[in-house]
Every structure is written in structure tokens, then in C-alpha cells.
């Protein structure tokens, strides 16, 4: 497999260049972008949503980050690492002279403290599962800890395979070999934290069961001391967050002297703000995409970025006639994905009837088992003899404009190409989530996944047995698939690993437990005076280049 997407440079200079002609004065080096929503927490360990991570990755550095082309990890908080021959012990060599934003040195003990804070069951961080509690040694008892007992929580945390033999060495022991663990170390919630500051904000030492005191520091810009490239200057609740460079950061000082993340929920409002010069970067609302494309000025400022995501339709394999593979395949093969991307998404996406999205290893569209083929679909359904039963199925739909539009399109496609009228069952979003968690649905669309990191383990683990009713809504249970994925997750040989994931993808497609639809692309507007953004597939969708703001700068403009 070749890697398709390299980092896209949108700069006056060539890739890798640092030409900063026409640089605006430092007081004009302000980037104003729309982050959409206020983070629910400024503590990275508690963050689960993209709009939270957006602030988290600026204020805190993990051990590694994804390379711009997504091919591997590159050092941030750590400069190198060793894996023991049995694959169970990761020794991270931390960056020498790394400092916190208040000037104190970052030591290995801060990493141990931060990871334990994250893994504290009393805090119930949203991202503990499944990357950490099933990987780190001693962490698998996470769900059985009595979170009302400080001694039980302490015993659990002290039993974790996390240690700091010296100030610059952070050792993580695993339960089982995990070839993807270097990627886990790039995640935004796996960061160091400052014990002294957290305790000071809490008014002194506190019990490990006291979640309120443990989070007191994270609501005050003054006590959010991080090791990331930027630090928080101001939190104007539900309006904006202002970031300024961390003066003690290890890398050369960036050009951008301020990043202001506005929290404008309505895309149309953000679009108006962009047009009146109040914002420099926005995501284009779906309704305005065609206007932007045809506008001579705006179209020049627009960029289309593939996201590491894929959308699919889930089919409940425990309900007849969807327990029949041929029926599921008939549904999968009767949707014209190109039409979907063009008509519904206005071209912001890529039709994709395979699993792994473009931009990461494992992307391979050669398997056309689910590809659009109405004749073959009709044939499959006729052979199964379950056309009438299929017509009784309902398509569960969230009560949002986007979901209703998409699902109406799917129903129309099935009606046209398959001759089956499937009714939409439109209900409020919370009820939909409740129902799919209980497995109470026939067909549910569209759901999908945005990758946490460009490694296939992040994707294939979704459909292993036992993950039932959590994104694997249709409850695929295929022991041969589980076996391949478990082995591939642990395999350190790249070629063998890729081959096993490739076989697993084929099984997933052939089983048609989900019908793969399309990879969404992000359509953003960036003012022409914003230069040097390093845009990658792991950036936040509305914040192109946010993984590497150190390359960005503002040029002189009126």
C-alpha cells in the first residue's frame, strides 16, 4: 500500500520552506477561527469531543504526534522509545529540558501522575475505554473498582504498570503486546499533569475519590499549566478561548501570537462573521457550499481536506430478514454512493464501499463486493426470496436535518434500485442512541468513525465480538475476524500486520454487517492572508493546520 495523502501545504513558499515574506507585525499575528462549542473540560484527560481536543492539543503535548503524512509517529514530549523484546514494556525517553508553561521542568513523575489522573475510575474519563483499560498492565480491573472507597481507588492506581525510574524516563508496562501502542501515546488525553498545581487549586491534598476537587484546576486559565506550544490566556465562557504562545516551549517561538477559538454554534453565523472579516478560518455550512464554489473570491479561499473518517449503514444481524447476508448485501449494493456524495454532500466527500478511508495505511478500494450494482443487488434479493420481509424493515433516523436528508436519500435509492419501500423511523437523537445501544432497530444510518490516529487497529477493533452495541450496532460476531484482528493488533511485523488487516477488511465487507458509504471531506474557508498552514488528515475538521500552528503566519493585509 502506498500512502495517498501527504501533508498539504498551502503557503506562498514551497513545502518545508520558511519564507515569510510580507509578514505582518507581531500584534497582527492573530488567528481567529471557529471551534463551534466551548470545551466541556479544559483537562485533556477528560476530553472526548473534537472541539475539546482542539484546545487540548494546543495546551498539552503527548509523548508523540502523528507525522504530517500520517505514516508514523514523531517525537513531542518524548524524543525516543524502546520496546522490550516481548513487546510488553515501553520505555519512553523524555525530552531533556522540557518545561511547563510556568517554567518548571517536566519530569517523568508528571507523566505518571497525569496518566493515573486519567485512569482514575472515580473521574470516569470518557476515553479510558478501550485504548488504556484493556492495554496497560493492571488496568483491566477498571470497572470493578469501588469508586466510593479511596483506598480501593489508590490500590488500583498504584497497581498500574506506570513508573518513573528517573526524571527523564517514563516506563509503561502492558498486559499484552500491542503494536499500535506508539499511536496510543499520541492521544490528547495521555498527557502529563502537575500534582502541585492540581492540589493547590483544590485547596490542598484530596482523596482520590473526590472528582470535584480533582477538576477544580481546569476551570481557571491561571491554573491550566501545560507543556504544549500554547497556553490559555483567557476563557470567555461560551464565547471564545484565547491562546498565546507558551514562552517556555522547547521549539522555536511561533509567528502566531494569539489564537482565538470562537464558539459559534450556528455555521451560518460563523459564515457571516467570515464574510465581514471577523473570522479567518471556518468550516463552510453545507447549505452554502455551492455558493462558495461559484463565488469568484470565496472559492479561492476554500480548501477541501479528506478526513480520517468513514460513514456506514448498520444492519441488525439478529433480526430477520437482515440475518441473511444476501439481503444485507442487496441493500449495500443498491445505493449509488457517487450520487450521495454529489447531491447530498455537494461533493464534500469520496464515495467508498470499503472500510479504511483514504489517507492512512490499509486504504484499498480494490474489493468491490459492496460496490453499487443495482442489477446484482436485485438478483441477490430475488434469490433470497425475502423481498416482502425486507419491506417491513424500518430505517432508524435521528431527528436532525442532516440525518433526515441522508436517510431519505437511502430510502429513495432502495425504492428505485431494489423496488423495496423502507420507511423512515424519525425520532429524537437521545432515543435513537438508547435504542441502538439496546439493539432495538432494524437498519440505522448513517453512523461512522473519525479515527483517533492513522493506525488500522483504531478501526478494526470496532467490529470485534464483545464490542456489540457500541458502534458495532449490528452485532457482527465472526470468530475468524476476531482472530485476525487480535493477531494483527499485536503483530510487530508491518507486512504481516497489513496483510492480516487486509483479510479482516475483506471479511467485514463480505459479511455486509454494515454497508460502507462514503468518506466525508471537510470544506473550509481560510483567508488569503493566513499562510503556512500545515494541513493534515489528523487536524480538527474545522481548524485546518491546528496540529502544527508553528508553521503558520499572517501576512500584511488591509
Amino acid at each position, binding site marked *: 500500500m502506498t500512502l495517498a495523502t501527504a501533508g498539504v501545504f498551502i503557503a506562498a513558499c514551497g513545502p518545508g520552506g520558511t519564507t515569510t515574506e510580507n509578514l505582518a507585525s507581531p500584534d497582527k499575528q492573530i488567528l481567529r477561527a471557529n471551534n463551534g462549542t*466551548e470545551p*466541556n*473540560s479544559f*483537562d485533556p484527560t*477528560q476530553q*472526548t469531543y473534537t472541539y475539546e481536543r482542539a484546545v487540548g492539543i494546543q495546551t498539552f503535548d503527548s509523548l508523540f504526534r502523528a507525522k504530517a503524512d500520517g505514516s508514523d509517529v514523531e517525537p513531542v514530549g518524548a524524543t525516543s522509545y524502546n520496546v522490550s523484546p516481548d513487546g510488553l514494556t515501553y520505555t519512553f525517553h523524555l525530552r531533556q529540558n522540557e518545561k511547563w508553561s510556568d517554567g518548571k521542568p517536566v519530569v517523568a513523575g508528571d507523566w505518571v501522575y497525569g496518566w493515573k489522573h486519567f485512569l482514575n*475510575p*472515580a*473521574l*470516569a*474519563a*470518557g476515553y*479510558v*475505554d*478501550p485504548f488504556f*483499560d484493556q492495554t496497560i498492565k493492571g488496568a483491566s480491573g*477498571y*470497572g470493578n473498582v469501588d*469508586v*466510593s472507597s479511596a483506598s480501593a481507588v489508590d490500590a488500583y492506581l498504584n497497581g498500574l504498570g506506570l513508573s518513573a525510574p528517573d526524571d527523564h524516563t517514563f516506563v509503561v508496562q502492558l498486559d499484552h503486546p500491542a503494536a499500535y501502542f506508539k499511536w496510543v501515546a499520541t492521544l490528547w488525553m495521555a498527557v502529563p499533569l502537575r500534582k502541585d498545581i492540581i492540589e493547590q487549586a483544590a485547596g490542598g491534598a484530596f482523596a482520590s475519590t473526590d*472528582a*470535584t476537587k480533582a*477538576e*477544580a484546576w*481546569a*476551570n481557571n486559565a491561571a491554573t491550566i499549566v501545560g507543556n504544549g506550544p500554547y497556553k490559555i490566556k483567557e476563557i*470567555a*465562557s*461560551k*464565547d471564545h478561548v484565547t491562546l498565546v504562545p507558551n514562552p517556555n516551549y522547547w521549539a522555536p517561538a511561533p509567528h502566531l501570537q494569539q489564537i482565538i477559538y*470562537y*464558539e*459559534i*454554534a*450556528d455555521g*451560518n*453565523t*460563523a459564515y*457571516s*462573521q467570515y*464574510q*465581514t*472579516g*471577523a473570522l479567518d478560518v471556518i468550516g463552510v455550512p453545507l447549505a452554502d457550499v455551492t455558493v462558495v464554489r461559484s463565488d469568484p473570491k470565496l472559492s479561492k479561499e476554500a480548501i477541501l481536506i479528506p478526513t480520517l473518517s468513514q460513514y456506514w449503514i448498520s444492519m441488525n444481524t439478529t433480526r430477520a430478514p437482515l440475518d441473511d447476508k444476501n439481503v444485507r448485501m442487496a441493500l449495500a449494493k443498491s445505493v449509488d454512493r457517487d450520487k450521495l456524495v454529489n447531491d447530498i454532500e455537494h461533493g464534500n466527500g469520496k464515495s467508498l464501499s470499503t472500510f479504511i478511508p483514504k489517507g492512512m495505511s490499509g486504504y484499498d478500494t480494490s474489493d468491490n463486493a459492496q460496490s453499487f450494482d443495482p442489477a446484482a443487488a436485485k438478483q441477490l434479493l430475488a434469490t433470497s426470496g425475502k423481498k416482502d420481509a425486507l419491506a417491513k424493515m424500518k430505517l432508524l433516523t*435521528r431527528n436532525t436535518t442532516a440525518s433526515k436528508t441522508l436517510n431519505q436519500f437511502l430510502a429513495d435509492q432502495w425504492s428505485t434500485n431494489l423496488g423495496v419501500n423502507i420507511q423512515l423511523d424519525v425520532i*429524537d*437523537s*437521545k*432515543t435513537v*442512541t*438508547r435504542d441502538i*445501544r439496546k439493539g432495538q432497530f432494524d437498519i440505522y444510518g448513517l*453512523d*461512522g*468513525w*473519525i479515527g483517533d490516529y492513522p493506525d488500522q487497529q483504531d478501526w478494526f477493533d*470496532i467490529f470485534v465480538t464483545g464490542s456489540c452495541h*457500541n*458502534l458495532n450496532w449490528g452485532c457482527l460476531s465472526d470468530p475468524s475476524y476476531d482472530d485476525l484482528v487480535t493477531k494483527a493488533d499485536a503483530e510487530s511485523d508491518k507486512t504481516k500486520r497489513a496483510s492480516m488487516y487486509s483479510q479482516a477488511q475483506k471479511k467485514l465487507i463480505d459479511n455486509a454487517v454494515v454497508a460502507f458509504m462514503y468518506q466525508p471531506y471537510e470544506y473550509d474557508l481560510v483567508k488569503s492572508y493566513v499562510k503556512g498552514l500545515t494541513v493534515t488528515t489528523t487536524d480538527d475538521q474545522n481548524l485546518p493546520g491546528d496540529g502544527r500552528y508553528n508553521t503558520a503566519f499572517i501576512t500584511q493585509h488591509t
Partner: protein
Amino acid sequence: MAVIAGRPARGALLPPQLRALTGTRSGALAIFVVRRILWMVPIVFFVIVITFTLMHLAPGSPWDKGGGRQLSDTVVNNLNIRYGLNKPVFTPWFDFSTGHFIPFRWDDQFKLYIWNVAHFDFGLSYQYQGKTVSTLLLESWPYTATIGVLAFLLIIPIGVGLGVVAALRQNTRIDYITMGFATIAASFPNFVIGALMVVAFSVLAYRATGGNFYLPAAGFAMDDSLIMPVVTLALLPIAYTARLTRASTLETIRQDFVRTAWAKGLPERLVVVRHVLKNSLIPVVTTLGPTFAFLVTGSVIVETVFAIPGIGRAFVVAIESRDYPMILGTTILFSLVVAIANLVVDVLYVFIDPRVRLT
């Protein structure tokens, strides 16, 4: 409403020390106000009971996400413990299956909440980690209240003024124009008005003037960014108030005492201000109380269109995310605002209408 004109034997149920007070006008008013304030306690209690019940009947949990991978059962379980959601919502008194009374317990979610509210502790938000509901309300309400009060200040002169002018010039061009405006303003939903204003006064104005003269499309500051949200918010109540004032004024100017005033040869200004307005404004004042409460509790649409970090949007977001303490805290605040606005209106009656006695 405890406003009854001309009822005898006022204060009969009061203790003798206080009964003496009822004899004076200001004493009666003070007792009325104190009593109404005390009534707010049971009102708030019932608001809590209803909100609590409805909120927990609504499907979904605070931890469900709108798509993608959901939190694991373990994390959900620990979150429930962290926020006390593992306790029963209500404890029933009687078990119909066994026919026994259930022992009283203090620590169900409802009783704990009432206990905390009695101590002015409205709890922690589920959505915004480590933030109290009181903090969130204090952060967002000032924005909403500022816009609401400004809108209210527009309603009285413009709404009442247009209504009176239209009534005095009934069936003239002025009347038709005024009422035509009121009908249009009342029939356009404010998300349409807001969006149209943004296009006209922000986007197109910016383009036309090269960025020299336009109104900001979003944000909140004590400057021109307030114009569009305030106008959008005020338009419907202005239209409503104008129509009501016109109708009420038309009724008043046909009364005998107005004819007498004209017959006495009083100048128009005196007739209108002293005789007509004083009487025609009584029904208008009745509606201004609820209107004020409506304006300062925020409009989700205005706050969304103009990206104002106010309480109206916070309330809707809290409901969508099932942030129970935030829903309850906001509802309590709103119910107090409505109760106080109504109380103020009732007190104002005393000064506007001498026939009104408070009991």
C-alpha cells in the same frame, strides 16, 4: 391573581398585630408583597417536582452521544456514581406488589436535590466539568438580561406610542401603516428576521462599503453588536403591544368621560395623557409583566443567530444533553423571574388604577 376590587373585611385572617397595618394603604401593600414572596416557595417547589419528573421521563441519559462510539458501560456506571445518578430518582411510599409501606429514605435524588436547593446549592453541571450551575447561570444570564432589558425599553415608547397614534388617527393612512407594520412584524418568525438583518446590515453592508460601515453579525459587547439582537428580540412584543394599545385606546376614547373631557374644551394633549392613556394602559401593563419575563429569560433563536452566550441557548443545550442540574437551576431561575414580574405588575396596578385593592 390576588387582585380583587372593593372586597370588604380585608386581612381578616391575619394576626391582630398585622391586621392593624391593613388599614393603611402602604401597610396593606407591604403585607401583600411579603405574602406573595412567601408564596414563591411552594411555587418553586412544584416547579421542581414537575421539572424533575418530566426530565427523568425524557428518554436518554446525560452520557449518550449523538453518534459514533459511545461510552463503555463501565464509564457510564462510574459517571452515574460520580454524579449520584445511581441512587433512585424518587422513593415510593408504598409497595403495591407486597402491600407494605416502604421505609422512608432521605437519599433519593429528589430529596437530596430539595435539601441542596434549600441551602442554595444547585449542584454541579454534568456537561461542564467542575462547574456549578450557579456559576453557569451567573455567567450567561447577564448577557441575556442586558439584551432583554434593552428590548423592553424599546417596547414601551415604540409599542405604546404606535398604538396610541394609530388609535387617535383611526382609519387614516397612519393607522394603516402602523398596523400593517405590526402585522408583518408579528407574523415573521424571529429567526427569519434575524437572518435577513444579518444578510442586509452585516454581509451586504460590509461588501457595499468595503468594510467601513456594517453591523457585527455576532458577539456581545456594549456597542453596535447589540443593535440587531435587541431589535430582533423586541420586534414581536412591539407589534403585539402596539395592537393591544390601539384596541384598548379605541375603547377608552369612546367612553363618556373622554367625551366630557373634550366637551370641557381641554387641549388634546391633556385629554390623551390624563384621561385616555391612564385608562387604556391598564390591560397593556398586564401584558408587560409576562413580556418582561419572556425577554429576560432569553430567546434561543436570537442567541443562536447572533452567537450570544446567553441563558436561553444554555437552557436548550442543557435539555438536549440531559444536564439535569442545569435544567433544574434554569427552570427555578425562570420561575422566579416570572413570579417577580407578575408581582411587580400587581403592585403597579395600585398606582395606575385607584379602584384596585390588594389583599
